[in-house]
């Protein structure tokens, strides 16, 4: 019974980590769209290349933070949460 409970905890943590990483897809799509629009803008006004690149770099870095939040949650669910939950289970049983 205890093994089953631990298995469920580990499985749920892994499922949660996988679900959290879905959020990692969004920034890629957003950055892709931003760069495509920047290409168009630079094509129209080649002299604005420097300012467009700076603005886009900052925008891409901000967009990427969303993916980082997901990454951190996934890492915590994989490496920190299982041990914590198993300890909680053990202390509850004992």
């Amino acid at each position, binding site marked *: 019974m205890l093994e089953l409970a631990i298995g469920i905890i580990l499985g749920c943590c892994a499922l949660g980590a996988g679900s959290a990483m879905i959020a990692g897809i969004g920034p890629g799509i957003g950055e892709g769209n931003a*760069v495509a629009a*920047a290409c168009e803008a630079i094509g129209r006004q080649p002299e604005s290349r*420097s300012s467009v690149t700076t603005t886009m770099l900052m925008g*891409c870095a*901000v967009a990427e933070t969303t*993916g*980082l939040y997901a990454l951190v949650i996934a890492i*915590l669910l994989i490496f920190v949460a299982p041990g914590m939950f198993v300890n909680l289970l053990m202390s509850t049983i004992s």
Partner: protein
Amino acid sequence: MSKIDETVKRESVYIAAFVGVLSVLMQAVFLVAGRWDYTVLCGNLLSAAAAVGNFFLMGLTVQKALGKGEKEAADTMRLSQRLRLLLLFVVVAVGAAAPCFHTLAVIIPLFFPRVAIAVRPLMDKRNKNGDGKEGEGK
């Protein structure tokens, strides 16, 4: 190998400098809290290098993508973002699993570039005001 764009270099240096300053602040906070040991320093170094490297690689990808067509540029950026996220995952996983790294000290510096970008408009505004005052004096 293609030449690195001046804008990418400038922004990467700005982010690296800001990450360095915030890392020192974080070390000070750990020290004041009485939780400082060598694992905090190792974790901070690993994560700060990963954060700056991630930004620099993003800059290189943007530079490369701007020379392509719209569709190709978008695809390049998407692929690059996924690969960089995978790279960060490996770095943070190593930081979380290895006992020589403090987990919190590995996670926090990943968000320093975001803080640097949030502060950027304030610094630009201050620089502009400074220039304006100098101009008035002349």
